């Protein structure tokens, strides 16, 4: 049930996007139905929660990381979920009539439902990692909603600012919650909430608190992070009404309430949270009075009321928490109604500027009535709900002592309430009362029920909670307060009349002074606007552009386009990390007995070192360095033979041949030498990096080899013959145990070959093509294009080499050999034909298409692997049996051999595709005209009749 509730809006977000194809009404119906369905599910869960139960769902997701789909719904979650869905439903109805025909409604409702789902996720998450995901989702989806009118620059900038501020806060919250989770030993809120003592005693309490508050204060627009909220007013009014009354900005308050049992009650908490809330409440109330934009006024009013709530939770007393819970409900009701009302005024008169309004009461009686009731509630006038919670707040403030000053909090709270009265009455008086004007941008009249209905529902709540608080809101407030406090609630009474208390006098003073201030509004406003107050947006923009400039400068300095520098940084970083790890450990030399080196081994080592040194010294002479690097490859092959790895030796030597051939072909077109261009310091830097890297890798190799081995290979050894049907364990591993690796590998090889093909196939075009045409041989050429000796020798060798390849292939399963090596040997045999007789000769006779060969190889390997599935065995299980034939005797057939055929075909196709393509480019650069007549050895098999050898070609 709970899972359905959490997922419904997010999954349902698709519905309006699809329904908009039918029409705008269908679209709004779809969004409304999804929300209504979620509300019904919530209502079904509500009785249990209201009886004090906690509904839980636990689904493992990534248990190793402690990240699970653990959800829970207690009374606090229930209240927020109710506001999110209930007000959400009203907003959907309102938005249907608010949005213009040109607005893409499908997108709007999709965003809205996504946002709704994210908010819902926050309030029902048990796992804090899950909660953080939803928290970030609210930042992202609110970005989409605030910037919904993409063509408005204010919308885009406001959305960006909101995302930057709340996103940064989100990062802060991640840090804080992770610390909290680590202290408690669990990422589940239900567990964390049981660990108050451990958390408050931890030395990490303060950092965790600061980080969490960073997240809450940015989200809930607390001073000095409040500035994004007024700019977010560029959003369509339904969005503002939704985000800034009941949802987005309440998320921070929700976190404060949720974590109240474990974080609150310390001095740090009191001074940080209560002070921030108090300052925000007073400051924003003052600013709100001087905003001429209706939504701007409401935005600062929202900030002020968020400060009000923050302060209450900051007091840290159970009683203040009860009042906070109550005011969350009250604020959501009257503020959402007022935002919708501001939208109505904007919609009907064409302006939100208070200075251009006034006297609307008789023109728009319904809207006026709603505005007056909601506005009076915001001002804290009895008998409305805003009055009760404000009265209770003043009561709490009146006995709160701040730094030994008992008067400070009550005085400032009264000041805040005073300005609250002033701006609330300004909304009522300056918009609706006064004389009618004749210069409204549009002739105002009451809107249809679609626009005034939703706020009317909320206003009805405002009145009914005000008149019968204990009946309408009492049970919910009681349960939620218990959930927040984590225990029994103190004695309190929700009623209009609390007797003659200090709060009553504070309230009366606030109303009186507030009205006086409003009557002198014109004069005070003139002074206020004369003050040179810092503009938060300008500061923010300056800070942001400073950051951007810094980032650009930093990037330009580090990322200068020089690959050498990047590689040096990579290698340098690897060296630093590696050596830091080594120096930070307590390294002990290994004690495995070593093997004595034979004299031949020493000779081989000397040859390798000498060849490497020669490459380094001669690397500018490119042909020569290729010969030396060939020696290195040869010594490594010999080393593999010596160290019991015949398969590796065979592979290495055949790869060596192919690689050198390839490099020779490429070098034919490349410059033959490298110029000297590195400075001496550069040589020292590179030499130093190289020496350190060599020391590190060599040292690591030594450290491993001097320790005993504990391998998993026993399994392979035991099962190679019985399970895989082969005695060459390496080959059985390749084609059976780890056949999937091999399969992936031949695909990679095929892709590399196709990449080479595509690089070279197009080399004849554009700048590259012009260079090939203009290319001049820079080394002496043999007078013979195709040296006769070489041609004869390679053609004689071809069948022999293919034979050897087949032999290596067939024995591979039991003796050193196999598909890779066979493929390479056969490729070399064919490549020799390309080398000796030219591209044209070889291409004419090699009928097989290389691309097909690669594809066929991969497909055969895959089919073999899949074949085992038909017999109920896992992917790539080998089947084998022994047969006997006359003359040949007993022999084995294994499906692994078929797999190896695929490997061999892919290798042949890939190698020949790469080299043939390269030699074709080389040939076109040499500008060899295709021979008109065949040369002596060239007999074209495709031609009928006896070979024709014209006299003149045999010269």
């Amino acid at each position, binding site marked *: 049930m709970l899972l359905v509730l959490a997922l419904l809006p997010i999954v349902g977000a698709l519905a309006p996007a699809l329904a908009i194809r039918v029409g705008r009404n269908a679209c709004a119906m779809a969004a409304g139905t999804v929300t209504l369905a979620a509300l019904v599910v919530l209502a079904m869960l509500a009785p249990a929660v209201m009886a004090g139960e906690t509904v839980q769902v636990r689904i493992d997701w990534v248990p190793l990381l402690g990240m699970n789909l653990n959800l829970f719904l207690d009374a606090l979650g229930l209240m927020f979920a109710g506001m999110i869905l209930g007000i959400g439903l009203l907003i959907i109805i309102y938005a249907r009539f608010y949005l213009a025909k040109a607005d893409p409604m499908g997108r709007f409702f999709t965003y809205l439902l996504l946002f709704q789902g994210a908010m819902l996720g926050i309030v029902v998450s048990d796992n804090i990692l899950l909660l953080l995901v939803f928290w970030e989702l609210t930042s992202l989806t609110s970005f989409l909603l605030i910037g919904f009118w993409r063509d408005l620059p204010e919308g885009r900038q406001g959305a960006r600012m909101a995302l930057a501020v709340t996103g940064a806060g989100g990062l802060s919250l991640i840090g804080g919650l992770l610390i909290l989770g680590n202290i408690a030993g669990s990422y589940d809120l239900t567990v964390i909430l049981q660990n108050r003592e451990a958390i408050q005693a931890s030395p990490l309490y303060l950092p965790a608190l600061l980080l969490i508050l960073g997240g809450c204060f940015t989200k809930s627009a607390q001073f000095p992070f409040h500035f994004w909220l007024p700019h977010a007013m560029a959003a369509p009014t339904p969005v503002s009404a939704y985000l800034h009354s009941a949802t987005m900005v309440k998320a921070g308050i929700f976190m404060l309430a949720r974590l109240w049992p474990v974080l609150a009650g310390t001095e740090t908490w009191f001074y940080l949270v209560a002070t921030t809330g108090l300052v925000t409440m007073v400051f924003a109330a003052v600013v709100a009075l001087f905003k001429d934009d209706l939504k701007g006024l409401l935005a600062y009013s929202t900030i002020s009321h968020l400060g009000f709530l923050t302060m209450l939770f900051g007091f840290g007393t159970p009683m203040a928490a009860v009042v906070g819970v109550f005011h969350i409900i009250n604020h959501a009701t009257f503020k959402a109604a007022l935002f919708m009302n501001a939208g109505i005024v904007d919609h009907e008169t064409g302006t939100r500027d208070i200075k251009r309004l006034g006297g609307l009461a008789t023109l728009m009686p319904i809207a006026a009535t709603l505005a007056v009731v909601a506005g009076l509630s915001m001002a804290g006038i009895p008998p409305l709900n805003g009055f009760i919670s404000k009265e209770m707040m003043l009561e709490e403030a009146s006995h709160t002592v701040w730094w030994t000053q008992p008067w400070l909090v009550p005085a400032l709270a009264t000041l805040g309430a005073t300005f609250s009265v002033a701006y609330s009455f300004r909304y009522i008086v300056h918009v609706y009362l006064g004389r009618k004007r004749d210069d409204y941008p549009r002739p105002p009249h009451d809107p249809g029920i679609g626009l005034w209905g939703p706020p009317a529902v909320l206003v009805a709540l405002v009145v009914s909670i005000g008149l019968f608080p204990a009946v309408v809101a009492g049970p919910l407030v009681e349960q939620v307060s218990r959930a927040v406090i984590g225990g029994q609630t103190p004695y309190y009474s929700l009623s209009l009349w609390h007797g003659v208390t200090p709060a009553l006098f504070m309230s009366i003073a606030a109303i009186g002074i507030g009205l006086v201030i409003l009557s002198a509004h014109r004069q005070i406003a003139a002074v206020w606007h004369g003050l040179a107050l810092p503009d938060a947006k300008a500061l923010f923009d300056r800070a942001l552009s400073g950051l951007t400039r810094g980032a650009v400068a930093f990037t330009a300095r580090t990322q200068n386009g020089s690959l050498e520098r990047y590689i040096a940084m990579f290698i340098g970083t690897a060296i630093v990390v590696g050596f830091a790890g080594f120096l930070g450990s307590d390294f002990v030399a290994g004690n495995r007995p070593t093997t004595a080196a034979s004299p031949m081994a020493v000779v081989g080592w000397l040859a390798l070192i000498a060849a490497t040194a020669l*490459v380094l010294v001669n690397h500018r002479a490119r042909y020569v360095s290729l010969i030396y690097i060939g020696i290195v490859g040869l010594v490594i092959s010999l080393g593999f033979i010596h160290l019991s790895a015949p398969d590796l030796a065979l592979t290495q030597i055949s790869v060596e041949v192919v690689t050198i051939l390839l490099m020779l072909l490429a070098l034919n077109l490349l410059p033959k030498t490298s110029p000297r261009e590195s400075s001496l310091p550069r040589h020292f830097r590179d030499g130093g990096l190289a020496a350190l890297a060599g020391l590190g890798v060599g040292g690591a190799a030594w450290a491993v080899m001097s320790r005993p081995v504990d391998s998993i290979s026993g399994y392979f050894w035991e099962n190679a013959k019985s399970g895989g049907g082969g005695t060459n364990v390496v080959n059985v591993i390749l084609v059976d145990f780890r056949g999937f690796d091999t399969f992936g590998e031949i695909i990679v090889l095929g892709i590399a070959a196709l990449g080479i093909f595509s690089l070279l196939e197009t080399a004849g075009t554009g700048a590259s093509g012009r260079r090939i045409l203009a290319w001049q041989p820079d080394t002496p050429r043999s007078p013979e294009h195709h040296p006769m000796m070489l041609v004869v020798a390679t053609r004689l060798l071809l069948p022999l080499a293919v034979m050897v390849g087949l032999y290596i292939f067939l024995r591979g399963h039991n003796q050193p050999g196999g598909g890779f090596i066979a493929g390479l040997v056969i490729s070399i045999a064919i490549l020799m034909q390309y080398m000796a007789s030219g591209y044209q000769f070889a291409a004419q006779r090699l009928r097989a298409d290389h691309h097909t060969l690669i594809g066929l190889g991969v497909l055969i390997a895959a089919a073999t692997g899949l074949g085992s599935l038909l017999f109920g065995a896992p992917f790539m299980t080998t089947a084998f049996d022994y047969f006997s034939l006359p003359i040949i005797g007993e022999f084995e057939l294994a499906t692994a051999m078929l797999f190896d055929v695929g490997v061999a075909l892919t290798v042949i196709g890939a190698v020949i595709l790469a080299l043939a393509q390269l030699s074709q480019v080389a040939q076109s650069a040499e500008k060899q005209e295709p021979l008109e007549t065949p040369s002596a050895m060239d007999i074209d098999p495709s031609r009928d009749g006896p070979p024709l050898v014209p006299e003149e070609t045999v010269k």
Partner: protein
Amino acid sequence: MISLELLVASAIGVLTAAGVYLVLRRRTFPVVLGLAFLSYAINVFLFAMGRLVIDRPPLYDKAADGYTDPLPQALVLTAIVIAFGMTAFVVVLALRSYLETGIDRVDGMPDEKGKP
């Protein structure tokens, strides 16, 4: 007495150093050579993870009194072939880039003035 392990470890170190030095050059061809050296070094390093054993090829025989670890060999065999694929691709990439720009510097930038 020189041990085989020391020879192999030092060879790996020298191959790595040569590879790193060449990879840091400005022209493409030495960089390709450097990548080849690094491939050698890494393949031998991986191979050495199975320790050095003489005359015990991993060919199954009930009578064998020991065998070398076949798993690193299988891994290195694929690594050699993959390294070939990579080297081949990088060589051709270097060639194509040279043909496109007329210069074989790794970053494709023309030479600075006053330098050959």
